[in-house]
């Protein structure tokens, strides 16, 4: 107490300390925001990383005709014309024991399908099919402990004529008696023919020729259920047959003589390889009333004739190889994940997970690559541009992240979400901006001070209403109410406006003393009965209007004009979300309008301007930067609003401005999909990308609002 220097020193010390604390706090907040941004960015970034390819050198095999990789990538089967079926484990490759197969040497091997089922034409001129597998005792991880098994089918007698097999499919029995059946297609003396037989058939197969005028079948493949036969010809035609009727269902042109056919996971997209290395995916799709075979996407060509095609069992990537090169492409994006030169390649295999590629040369040299491409289905193009998806005739902008099956093709276009966000925001602001700004203008410039002291806190309390409550009310109360009385709702504003326009001149004609006593600054109270009257009038008029003009049922009327009506629609959202953003827009606008110096409005009034002219020509323009910033803050709030849109929009990712249907916004989408997104999966990362987008959107909006507010402050300093 006694020493003033000590007190001064202490005050300075405390000052420094508090300054430091405040600085640390501020910097922590900035660091936290940047940290969140970086984390979100880090989670989304792997979407855009290029695939990582690393060569591996697994060793040498007796030169195989075809190989098939085990799911683990640690073991493989190889079909060799002279040595038959071999089982090998990696690394090594170490040959493993297998029971002997059909008599050697074989004349032909039909390469294994995705599950590893292959067909061989053995020395005795008969067909044998086999699906070799590994017996892994109790999930043993060490391939050294595994045992190779291969159960050969009984011999199929192709009959007296030699037959070159092209396609083979085993159709599981229905379970209602009758076992599995086999369907085979092949070339007999250069003529395409097919046959069907029970899996345990013993007699010679009965072949039915399929007419193929002017061309020779080069490759064939059965559809997944073996109901249709796809054939590629030496003249570059693709044909679809319905074998039982022998009918040619449809056809398409390919640029080169076809050399290989294969399927992408799901069996919807047919892969076609050409003799010149061309690579293209085809699909059967309904266009109008007809089903056509059309090109889905062309891929960069390989060098040399395409020898084979193999698909991953996880996603839409597939392997294609020629005698000179090898490539892995993704169907959805059309992106080439791996491309490698490989001289003398004969057989190749893609592991079911798609992360290991093995190729075997005619000399038996094995070449391998590991491929790390965790998000091949996402590219900048699929996120933002219309994309051709399986089953669609036209490029689509669709968000459909998950489907019922594992072979579903995710559709991750962000456009419908961004559109939904903008649409929801647009309808919310359409409702909120006029109400909030004119409300603020009224409150700050016209309302009686007693009324103002009531209105402002009330509106600010509105902001405290949890948005989940608003969303709940909007979705479960408002939406059905609107559906019942949409016509009333639509005609209330015009009715109220016309009533007000009628009432105002009447009000002005009332005796001045009466107005002074009951009216000054309280005109708004007189609007209440007027509005109630308008509401009543609308209620009374609406059924009549609906009957007279809309044919008795407005939804049918809308439907007949091509406008579908959803119960959870943009109007409901606009109303509910508008309700959520009104307080913030109102408060900031009101502050901006009230902070317009009184001297300016006094000057205007003293010039003989009416209060309205003063408000409109002086106060509003002067406060306009503040009002603009209020609108921006409201916009930012509406963009990021989640709960209301989640509960009241129906979350339909459609791209239509129609006010009578819903939308799905970026924020609601995150809330909806996060529980379904496996960690570090593509969807998970795309959701983080949308979060980043949302963050940037609100960040830019709020920063712009803040900058404008700063400029506004400077502008007032001059006054």
């Amino acid at each position: 107490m006694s020493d003033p220097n000590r007190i001064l020193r202490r005050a300075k010390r405390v000052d420094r300390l508090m300054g430091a604390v405040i600085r640390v706090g501020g910097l922590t907040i900035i660091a936290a925001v940047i940290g969140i941004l970086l984390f979100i960015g880090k989670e989304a970034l792997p979407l855009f990383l290029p695939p990582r390819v690393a060569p591996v050198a697994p060793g040498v095999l007796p030169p195989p005709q075809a190989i098939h990789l085990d799911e683990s990538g640690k073991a493989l089967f190889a079909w060799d014309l002279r040595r038959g079926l071999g089982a090998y484990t990696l690394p090594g490759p170490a040959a493993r024991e297998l029971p002997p197969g059909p008599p050697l040497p074989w004349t032909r091997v039909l390469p294994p399908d995705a599950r590893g089922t292959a067909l061989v034409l053995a020395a005795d001129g008969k067909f044998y099919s086999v699906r070799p597998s590994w017996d892994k005792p109790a999930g043993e991880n060490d391939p050294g402990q595994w045992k190779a098994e291969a159960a050969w089918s009984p011999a199929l007698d192709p009959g007296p004529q030699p037959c070159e097999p092209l396609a083979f499919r085993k159709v599981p029995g229905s379970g209602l008696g009758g076992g599995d059946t086999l369907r085979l297609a092949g070339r007999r003396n250069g003529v395409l023919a097919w046959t069907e037989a029970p899996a345990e058939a013993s007699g010679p197969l009965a072949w039915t020729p399929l007419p193929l005028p002017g061309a020779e079948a080069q490759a064939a493949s059965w559809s997944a259920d073996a109901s249709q036969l796809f054939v590629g010809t030496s003249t570059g035609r693709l044909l679809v047959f319905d074998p039982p009727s022998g009918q040619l269902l449809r056809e398409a042109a390919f640029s080169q003589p076809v050399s290989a056919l294969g399927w992408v996971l799901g069996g919807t997209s047919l892969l076609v390889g050409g003799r010149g290395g061309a690579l293209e995916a085809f699909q059967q799709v309904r266009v109008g009333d007809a089903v056509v075979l059309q090109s889905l996407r062309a891929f960069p060509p390989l060098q040399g004739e395409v020898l084979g095609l193999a698909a991953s069992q996880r996603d839409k990537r597939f392997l294609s190889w020629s005698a000179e090169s090898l490539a892995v492409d993704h169907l959805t994006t059309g992106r080439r994940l791996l491309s490698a030169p490989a001289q003398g390649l004969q057989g190749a295999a893609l592991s079911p997970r798609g992360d290991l590629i093995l190729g075997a040369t005619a000399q038996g040299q094995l070449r391998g690559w590991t491929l790390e491409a965790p998000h091949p289905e996402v590219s900048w193009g699929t996120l933002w541009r219309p994309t051709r998806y399986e089953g669609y005739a036209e490029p689509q902008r669709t968000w459909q992240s998950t489907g019922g099956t594992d072979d579903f093709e995710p559709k991750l276009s962000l456009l419908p979400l961004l559109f939904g966000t903008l649409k929801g925001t647009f309808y919310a602001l359409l409702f909120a901006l006029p109400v909030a700004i004119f409300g603020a203008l009224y409150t700050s410039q016209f309302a009686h001070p007693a009324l103002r002291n009531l209105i402002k806190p009330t509106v600010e309390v509105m902001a405290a209403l949890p948005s989940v409550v608003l969303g709940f009310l909007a979705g479960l109360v408002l939406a059905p109410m609107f559906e019942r009385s949409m016509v009333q709702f639509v005609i209330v504003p015009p009715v109220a406006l016309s009533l007000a326009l009628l009432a105002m001149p009447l009000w002005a004609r009332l005796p001045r003393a009466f107005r002074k006593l009951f009216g000054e600054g309280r005109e708004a109270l007189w609007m209440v009965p007027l509005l109630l009257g308008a509401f009543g009038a609308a209620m009374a008029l609406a059924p009549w209007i609906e009957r007279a003009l809309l044919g008795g049922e407005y939804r049918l009327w809308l439907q007949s004009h091509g406008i579908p009506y959803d119960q959870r629609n943009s109007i409901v959202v606009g109303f509910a979300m508008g309700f959520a953003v009104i307080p913030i827009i109102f408060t900031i606008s009101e502050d901006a309008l009230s902070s317009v110096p009184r001297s300016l409005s006094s000057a205007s009034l003293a010039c003989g301007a009416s209060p309205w002219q003063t408000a409109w020509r002086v106060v509003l323009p002067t406060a306009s930067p503040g009002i603009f910033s209020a609108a921006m803050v409201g916009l930012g709030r509406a963009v990021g609003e989640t709960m209301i849109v989640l509960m009241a929009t129906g979350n339909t990712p459609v791209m239509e401005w129609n006010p009578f249907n819903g939308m799905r916004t970026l924020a609601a989408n995150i809330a909806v999909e996060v529980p379904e997104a496996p960690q570090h999966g593509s969807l998970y990362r795309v959701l983080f990308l949308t979060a980043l987008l949302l963050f940037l959107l609100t960040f830019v909006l709020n920063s712009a609002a803040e900058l404008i507010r700063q400029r506004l402050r400077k502008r007032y300093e001059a006054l």
Partner: protein
Amino acid sequence: MEIDDPRPVAEPLGRLSAAVGTPPTPQLRLRESPLAITDAAVLGAPPVLEVRNLDLWYGPQQALFGIDLDVRRNSVLALIGPSGCGKSTLLRCLNRMNDLIDGVRIRGQVLLGGEDLYDPAVDVISLRKRMGMVFQKSNPFPKTIYENVAYGLRIQGERDRRVLDEAVERSLQGAGLWEEVRDRLDQSALGLSGGQQQRLCIARALAVRPEVILMDEPCSALDPIATGRIEELIFELKKEFTIVIVTHNMQQAARVSDFTAFFWLGKLVETDVTERMFTNPRQRITEDYITGRFG
């Protein structure tokens, strides 16, 4: 300072005429003033504004007590008195700016050309067009110089560019600002200096050709040179307009006004021709205030 004598003096000055001729109290500063010479024509002019027995309350507190005051055509009336004495309140009664303040109650009459401003039938807005006002702090709108001056006409619905151009030029010339701003009419008024802004506000008030200009301490925020220019301007303006000016500056009141009214605690202590007021006030308290013994 001399007063032309004899001359007709109207009530209430007539009652005070006895005071004329008494030896002037030495007012050295007054003699330096080059401006204020009350001319005889003004003394005989008819009143434009008459305040009759005006009482005013802010809520329960009475701020003006039975004010009676005349403002003669083409004269300058200075309202002086210590802070809070009610002079600004009275000024704002003259164009009903007090209406904007909550809880104000007024009794009595203010007659403009014989018509009571407080008659319920009077339209406040058209009334304010007849009473221009200049405020203590210059308050140009954040618009261009041109739009500031044209504002009064624009709100009356004037769209004719020629009429507006003409009015802007006339008003700016009237306010002595034309030569300074003629090349930058389309620039923001906020870029002008303080004195220029105040003259712009005067030009804005002139544009609608009011009958009376009310000035509420128009120079209190200005430097002496800018103040001097405004004072010259007031001297010019009274040829065309009637001016009521509130001021704290005794010299200013003495320099620019024809008549002076002294207020104290909400009451009009005395009003007189300025020369007489400053040389020979009838009330002791007036003399004390004028000579700076309190204030």
